């Protein structure tokens, strides 16, 4: 017998469970979306992480405001020789390097003065709130404000993550519907394409494509993408992950294709377009939505990996991946250069994954949708 869930307790309710909680007179038809919302709204953890993700997005969208009115510098503006006052003490954004005496002055020649010692130029440490909003998270090796670049980098990473997920999901859905609906040679070709994509390690394929396109961009079939454009990593990521969304969706469509309502629709003379997009698509929308949410996180991670390896976002454009790469040379003395973007990636990915899991549970408690790579 179904057991009613109490308010505030999160359970994977089925429609039957929810119906059991209604007085007989109040039973009425509920749409699957409404039922999903009923399940979802009790999942406070998912909502918390959705809020966190929105907060990150809003902060990144406000990057120009922060750059102009708080930090007073752009994401690519270096200030290597600028001096700023941190808690009343004057500091240079990039400290002097070379042979210096105890006062930090350049020694005329090496080894002649025993008080002189060899030091390297190091960027300013995080000032937190000691410099009126300037260099809150310190500077990088070019004397650029890390906090400003972090927010601008977030815009880039989120843009690539979301847009590539949209493109990837769009093509995955089309290919899945075509393959499963038509079957035969079309299905064979599309499925082998998916198999081929599965055979390549995602990172290696991404590096190969990203590096090749980084030199001259993409100029074929009327599409002109300049090298250095963030559309290159966006399209590369969309392409390399399309099979990972398309193949499970094809399986679902293949299963739905055998259902009576599809047979009935075809028997009534519905066109293939109508069957695919009016009958089949709405029935896989819950999976598509979950895939879309989860793959944003995957794509943000992939973008960061590619950018870290130099095959993704090209300098000077900031992204969280390029920022981690920029900071690796200074990981001992200035760990915040890499830690800050790393933390942002972790927060964003965790937020999207937890929310995505909650969405999946709400849309279809029995579904076993996972993005597997």
């Amino acid at each position, binding site marked *: 017998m179904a057991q009613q869930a109490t308010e505030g307790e999160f359970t994977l309710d089925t429609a039957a469970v929810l119906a059991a909680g209604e007085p007989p007179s109040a039973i009425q038809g509920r749409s699957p979306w409404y039922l999903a919302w009923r399940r979802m709204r009790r999942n406070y953890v998912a909502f918390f992480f959705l809020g966190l993700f929105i907060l990150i997005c809003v902060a990144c969208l406000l990057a120009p405001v922060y750059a102009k009115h708080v930090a007073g510098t752009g994401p*690519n*503006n*270096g200030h*290597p*020789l600028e001096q700023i006052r941190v808690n009343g003490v004057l500091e240079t954004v*990039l*400290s*002097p*390097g*070379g*042979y210096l005496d105890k006062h930090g002055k350049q020694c005329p020649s*090496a080894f002649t003065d025993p008080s002189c*010692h*060899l*030091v*390297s*130029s*190091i960027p300013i440490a995080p000032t937190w709130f000691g410099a009126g909003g300037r260099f809150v998270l310190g500077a990088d*090796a*070019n*004397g650029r404000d890390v906090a400003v670049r972090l927010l601008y980098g977030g815009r880039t990473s989120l843009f690539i993550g979301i847009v590539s997920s949209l493109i990837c999901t769009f093509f995955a859905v089309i290919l899945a519907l075509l393959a499963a609906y038509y079957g035969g040679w079309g299905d064979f070709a599309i499925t082998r394409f998916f198999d081929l994509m599965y055979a390549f390690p995602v990172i290696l394929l991404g590096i190969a494509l990203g*590096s090749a396109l*980084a*030199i001259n961009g993409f100029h074929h079939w009327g599409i002109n993408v300049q*090298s*250095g454009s963030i559309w290159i990593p966006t399209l590369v990521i969309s392409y390399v992950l399309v099979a990972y969304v398309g193949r499970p969706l094809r399986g679902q469509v293949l299963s739905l294709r055998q259902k009576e309502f599809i047979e009935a629709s075809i028997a009534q003379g519905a066109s293939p377009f109508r069957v695919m997009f009016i009958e089949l698509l709405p029935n896989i929308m819950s999976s598509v939505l979950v895939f879309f949410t989860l793959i944003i996180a995957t794509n943000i991670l992939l973008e960061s990996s590619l950018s870290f390896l*130099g095959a993704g976002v*090209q*300098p*000077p454009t900031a992204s969280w991946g390029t920022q981690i790469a920029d900071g690796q*040379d*200074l*990981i*001992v*003395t*200035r760990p915040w250069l890499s830690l800050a973007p790393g933390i942002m990636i972790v927060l964003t990915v965790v937020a999207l994954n937890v929310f995505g899991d909650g969405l999946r549970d709400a849309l279809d408690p029995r579904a076993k949708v996972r993005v597997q790579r």
Partner: protein
Amino acid sequence: MDRRHRLKWLFTAATFAVGVALIAAACGGGGSSSTTTTSSSSSSGSSSSSKSFANFRIAMDTGIDYLDPGLSYTVEGWSIMWNVYLPLLGYKHVNGPDGATIVPYLADSLPTVSSDGKTYTITLRKGIKYSNGATVKASDFRATIERDFKVDSPGVGFFGNIVGADQFSKTKTGHISGIVVNDSTGQITIHLNAPQGDFMNILATTFAAPVPAGTPAKDQSTTPAPSTGPYMIQSYQPNKVAIVVRNPNYDASQFDGNVPVGNPDKMTINIIGDDNVALQRVISGQDDYDEHQIPADRLASVQAQHADQIKVYTPANTYYFFMNTRTPPFDKLQVRQAVNYAINREALVRIYAGLAQPTQNVLPPTYPQYKKLNLYPYNLAKAKKLIAASGDKGMSVTVWNHDRGYDPKATAYLTDVLNSIGLKAKEKIINAAVYWTTVGNQATKAQIGFADWFQDYPHPLDWFDVLLNGERITQTHNNNYANFNDAGVNRQIDALKKQPTLTASVNAQWATVDKAVMEQAPWAPFLNRQFTDFFYTSMDLSCYINHVLYQFDYATICHN
């Protein structure tokens, strides 16, 4: 066993034990720490110094391209082969500018040069042998140069002025007619098409170091060719390890002190990819010398704990931004000058972690021809005015660079600067493996970008003739990235090329060429980079020699 026999047995055992211990010490114990020996060895005429020690272990970066004298074109490869393959002429093994002095190595004296500067006559020293015991012959030199052409050596361009070299490069059969040899007298006569002031430097490159005639015309890195120097390459596993040992047929007394005996009996060159790993290996005593640059992040801590074990040096190098004079907006002098005024060289020094000196010259300060220029003091306002006056404000500019080391940071700085003076700049960072061929291809039309130059040999021609002579601009593999072609400068270079020696007057003329070039501003030179050598505490740095061309001289280092 009676008492007499017991004593005999004990004596034999003790002798055997001592013998084993001595052999173990002489062999150096493989990967164990280095041990010092004081005796000279070998019955075959090889030498070892009183400062010899068993094994010098080097943490080398991945820069070795080949260990074949005809093919290697990196500092890493040359620094190893300097003491392995001796050319006819070479450089003094000393610190400072005197290291650029050319002395005879395999030749018995410096060449006799004809009055027209087109014929060089050299005689080989008598009785020099390769590491395999064969005698060095005059015809080996000719065969070596011909082999360079056959293996498509990157050094063949140096020999293009020899009569018949052009023809040989096409046919690769017969002999180069301009090299006449006599094996019985050891005489080598080289005929040039035109006088060439740096030809002795050319003869001192490893590309001209004789290997036996008949050495296969293919890469011999892993099957090393017989050598003439104090050392020979015993084995080489690319990207892993190279073992260099004493040449048993080397006799230092034959070289008038121009080539050292060498202190390490053996050199184990471990190829380590990561700077931090290499540093840690030396700190912990796994290796004796870190050939990598100490990471900027760790310099302070290494300095604090091992200050006496660090050496900083400035090899002859210039880092610069080239501006393509054939491509707008850099076809205008005003724009090129604006870039020179706009970059703050002190800022760039800090971006390179402070281990550099700012410069506005083409020539590095280690050259006797260097005369410090200050044509473009930092002046952003003036740069903006020049851009506005040029009429190119807002023009799109692509800044090129490769993706390795600190260099991309310099491009990020330049892009920011170009945007600040009114141009619309963006970066184009490509893989280092294809960068130089890409920007050296005229089809690329690279507008502005990063470049650096480390000398092939210590002579101003290696800078001005190779990098800035408009007559040497090529369609591909062009070294003159700026496509700088100034008739006056070309004439000056061509005239100075004919000078057989670098006198004070000639040096002064080279300094005027430096100034004349920078007045046209095809480059924006910004720094001369410094580098570090770091040693394990067991090494005695009182013997340390840093050569102007080959940098740290492995052969002369001492062990405590």
